[in-house]
């Protein structure tokens, strides 16, 4: 089985550049605005879209993504609507991979089997579920793989060589390397350390390795992208939305435009990554 993720990653490999993976929060600050943000992402140069599923208790997220999730929930976002965002997006774009990222409970409550059917029908290609380590693979990972949806696992600095095979075992699409021990939006780890970690993981798998947590600028995207197969940016995008919202949540500028400006810059970063590496 190949998914949109596999095809996109293969294509970028032939182009000789890393993927720009962009995270935004589904439903932040409201449904229509977030749909316009989603549509703006590939146009601005995003290669893969990660859509956050808001959750009341996001234990691995920093203040920016926590706040984005709360804005979305306040705006009436639900998992049903998050899936609808994907299918609305798919009406105009059947190529860009969509990965849902979040926590298990909303999926568990939705019902795993029903969720996988609906996610597939909505054009979802992959899942990142933070609180499902390989020890809990029977819950969602195995059923997702059977349903033809990639299950993208996080590998972290605490995942040593002994544990890596377990983490990689049922991973597909790509491996998401968490650059540091910490929450989303914290300071980026030393790039040298990240590069050697990526190399270490690549010694265990043929899957593309994308790096996230802490990448905020085009320059960081360029440096990280020199060694990784993809660079994930989340907090910076979510902040670009927050920055154009007033104290009562009113829009002071177009959030989609603010995100597009940021993503265009990041896209320049990843597109110059290998050039820089070759220098």
């Amino acid at each position: 089985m190949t998914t949109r993720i596999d095809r996109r990653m293969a294509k970028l490999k032939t182009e000789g550049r890393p993927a720009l993976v962009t995270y935004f929060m589904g439903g932040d600050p409201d449904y229509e605005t977030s749909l316009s943000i989603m549509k703006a992402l590939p146009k601005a140069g995003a290669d893969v879209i990660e859509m956050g599923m808001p959750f009341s208790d996001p234990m691995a997220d920093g203040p920016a993504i926590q706040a984005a999730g709360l804005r979305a929930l306040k705006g009436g976002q639900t998992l049903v609507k998050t899936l609808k965002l994907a299918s609305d997006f798919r009406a105009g774009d059947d190529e860009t991979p969509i990965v849902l990222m979040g926590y298990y409970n909303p999926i568990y409550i939705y019902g795993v089997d029903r969720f996988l059917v609906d996610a597939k029908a909505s054009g979802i290609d992959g899942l990142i579920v933070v609180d499902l380590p390989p020890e809990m693979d029977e819950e969602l990972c195995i059923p997702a793989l059977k349903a033809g949806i990639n299950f993208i696992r996080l590998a972290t600095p605490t995942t040593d060589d002994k544990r890596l095979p377990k983490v990689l075992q049922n991973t597909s699409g790509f491996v998401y390397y968490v650059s540091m021990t910490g929450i989303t939006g914290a300071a980026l780890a030393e790039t040298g350390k990240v590069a050697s970690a990526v190399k270490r993981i690549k010694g265990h798998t043929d899957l593309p390795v994308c790096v996230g947590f802490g990448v905020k600028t085009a320059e960081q995207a360029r440096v990280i992208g020199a060694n990784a197969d993809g660079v994930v940016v989340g907090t910076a995008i979510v902040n670009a939305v927050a920055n154009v919202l007033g104290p009562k949540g009113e829009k002071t500028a177009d959030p989609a435009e603010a995100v597009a400006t940021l993503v265009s810059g990041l896209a320049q970063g990843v597109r110059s990554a290998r050039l820089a590496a070759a220098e």
Partner: protein
Amino acid sequence: MNKPATPNSFRTGPDEQGMFGIFGGRFVAETLMPLILDLEKNWNEVKNDPDFRAELTDLSTHYAGRPSKLYFAEGLTKHLRDVSSAKGLGGGAKVYFKREDLNHTGSHKINNCLGQILLAKRMGKKRIIAETGAGQHGVASATVAARFGFPCVVYMGATDVARQSPNVFRMKLLGAEVRPVTAGHGTLKDAMNEALRDWVTNVEDTYYLIGTAAGPHPYPELVRDFQSVIGTEARAQILEQEGRLPDTIIAAVGGGSNAIGMFHPFLDDRQVRIIGIEAGGRGLDGIEHCASMNAGSPGVLHGNRTYLLQNADGQIMDGHSISAGLDYPGVGPEHSWLRDSGRVEYVPILDDEALEAFKLTTRVEGIIPALESAHAIAHAVKIVPAMDKDQIVIVNLSGRGDKDVHTVASMLGMEI
């Protein structure tokens, strides 16, 4: 829910995956998974290690004041017999209190903290973090951290910091840093999220001292084992004082550490009726309660699957209870399993009923119970008059109520 088949023993859980039936497990981020596995490995090494047990017993005896007494609550028994007579029933069981309120730091929380601090020491950890709601676990954590020379950071919801200022001051005196959590609604579940965020950031040197029998495996098991001293003592004490087992035991359930500690040694005594009391708050019809097992549904939060208060989209709700210690929208996974297996009954007690029991116990026993414990007493007040005089009820008096006098005063419309 499907009712699982009745097992031969209710005391064998969890399984190797940390599950109690469908409940429990290890629902944590990958960054924490190696830490959880390391904790499990260390826990398995010490749990039957005589040296570890001896050190814990010595501290429990000389530092915490164990064993706690099993006290015949004669005043309350007499009061409830009068109630029984007035109803023309002529009964009223004997009520005993397991006096966890007499422990050092004033509640059962010290039992768990002493056990875990010894574990942290063995693991070579350098720093302690903890979450707290009412502040009882925060105080107990700060206490053992002071005793063993660890720096300690306690996460506490900003709302709780405001309403539990004496405990905040206590923690600071003990040398702990109290970090108010403004995320979410600033209560216990937000404090727990923030403690997990700290742990995921400081993986090398930090020990997370969870305060209740919840969280990812092995926490529910190890907290239960450290708290089971309550039930083990109570069982031996009642056999010595009455020559037989009690008919009913009652304990309040927030996360459920005092209750599981009281219940676990009695689980295979099938003739003993076991009742856990949830916070019914202002009633189960609305959302102002914390009765996750009576009005919630199974879900996944804070590392385990258990009964939770949540909406149809799987978003966790904020509960309400007069008692900050019961103000948590989940419950330990073993309780969820005991509920579904039918071995333990879980019933709600309202704020008002707990408050009445608080006042009654203070008046007829000269004991000011914690509002958490007052929930358990309130249920005894309900059922004891209809029981026979030769029956025996043990209520776990999990903590003392000095911390609650401000809350009670404001409920009664007084200023102190």
